């Protein structure tokens, strides 16, 4: 199957993963996003680009935060938004995923924003739309299993570009549970695509997947070493389930070796920025002093996230297959 994200004109038809996206398209999304940032400051916080279009939020995995930001982004584009909690719906009654998609397409959906617990689920949907020639319907991956969270990757890049301007002389460290993180994978692909010369992954062996060097990443199990001279620190959330899977002994021990404290932050460059996809576990992966400190840009990430999602959706909606 050819790269299902691009239509035959090389334009973005679906956003499924940052892997496989030409650098020009990534930059176009970031450039477009900067135009949308100002929309939130106006009296009428809307532009009419997607007026009359229907965006269906298909969340097979719960997430109020991400769903809310997509809903805000859609409404700022003047689209109609329908939220579907898929766990309580027909699929749990046995209707197949593809039948669900067909039913929703029959209700004239223009865009599906999909979050699913399984890696690859949005590809199935995109392939089905391509096979059934529904070229006017677009899929945005809002997170699939451990595989990708492309809009988060893009908003992280937007944030870095806002504060650091030039990607080509940065050292970026991603810290935490990279093994289970779709955010980490998307960030890694985005950073390497945009030419960041050094991408580091920091964590215990149990949380570092194999094959990271093939993705262009330097691994560190010693956080103090890994943070030396770093320009950007991306902290990942540690989930409780990791203690159950014999991957980590306790939260306390994790914080001791991998928590971002002010002392550790001081090892990075003095103007280093601290990012986090949210929600934060204070005292687990990040100290409150750092989270609330001057180097943290976590709240701006949220604002940028809406603009980036508006950019993605309006670019997609303007491309026919």
């Amino acid at each position: 199957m050819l790269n299902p994200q691009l239509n035959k004109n090389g334009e973005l038809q679906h956003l499924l993963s940052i892997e496989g996206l030409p650098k020009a398209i990534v930059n176009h999304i970031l450039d477009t996003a900067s135009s949308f940032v100002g929309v939130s400051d106006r009296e009428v916080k809307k532009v009419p680009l997607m007026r009359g279009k229907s965006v269906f939020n298909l969340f097979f995995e719960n997430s109020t935060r991400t769903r809310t930001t997509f809903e805000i982004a859609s409404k700022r584009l003047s689209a109609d938004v329908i939220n579907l909690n898929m766990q309580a719906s027909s699929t749990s009654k046995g209707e197949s995923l593809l039948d669900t998609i067909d039913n929703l397409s029959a209700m004239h959906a223009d865009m599906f924003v999909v979050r699913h617990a399984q890696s690859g689920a949005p590809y199935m949907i995109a392939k089905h739309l391509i096979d059934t020639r529904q070229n006017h319907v677009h899929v945005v991956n809002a997170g699939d299993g451990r595989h990708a969270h492309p809009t988060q990757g893009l908003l992280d890049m937007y944030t870095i570009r806002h504060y650091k301007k030039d990607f080509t002389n940065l050292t970026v460290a991603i810290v935490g549970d990279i093994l289970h993180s779709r955010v980490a994978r998307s960030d890694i692909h985005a950073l390497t695509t945009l030419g960041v010369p050094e991408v580091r992954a920091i964590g215990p062996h149990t949380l570092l997947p194999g094959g990271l060097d093939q993705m262009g990443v330097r691994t560190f199990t010693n956080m103090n070493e890994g943070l030396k001279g770093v320009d950007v620190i991306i902290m990942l959330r540690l989930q409780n389930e990791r203690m159950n899977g014999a991957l980590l002994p306790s939260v306390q021990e994790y914080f001791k070796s991998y928590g971002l404290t002010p002392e550790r932050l001081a090892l990075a460059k003095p103007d280093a920025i601290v990012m986090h996809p949210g929600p934060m576990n204070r005292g687990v992966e990040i100290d409150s002093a750092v989270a609330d400190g001057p180097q943290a840009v976590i709240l701006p990430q949220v604002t940028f996230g809406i603009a980036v999602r508006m950019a993605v959706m309006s670019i997609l909606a303007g491309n026919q297959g």
Partner: protein
Amino acid sequence: MSNPMKPSGLDAEALYANLLQQVRTGLTGAHDACIVGIHSGGAWLAERLAQDLGMTDRCGVLDVSFYRDDYAKKGLPAEVKPTHITFDVAGATVLLVDDVLYTGRTTRAAINELFDYGRPARIMLAALVDRGGRQLPVAADFVAATVQVDQCEALRLQRSDAGQFTLTIEENHA
């Protein structure tokens, strides 16, 4: 620029001087006046006008990409420039500035966008050149020249590094 350009035979600087004169008169006594230029040519003109009229704190720029009526056919343009309007539009007299007035669709989009910022008391339109060919009922309040341009050609304002204006004609391959 990929399309071949040739000089239009119009003296853009002279036209600007004419437009400035008209606008100066037209804005006299206007309540809460402000100038908003439409990217890119209109923005350059607006900047110069604001400087010459001493209104640089009441000058903004507008990109109409999100309000165009051809989005469904053409999608988002490759380059979207930022819109900056730092003052309150509500109750103001807004002078919209564009370089070339043609079909009127850009003006319609700009007006729609302005209204999403607030409700102006009045909007006036200044254009350096009116080339006719209106497709919507739009008219300029201040125009420096009315010209005929071939349908397959585009009239464009250029600004040199030193800030000099020129008008060029381009073959339209679109």
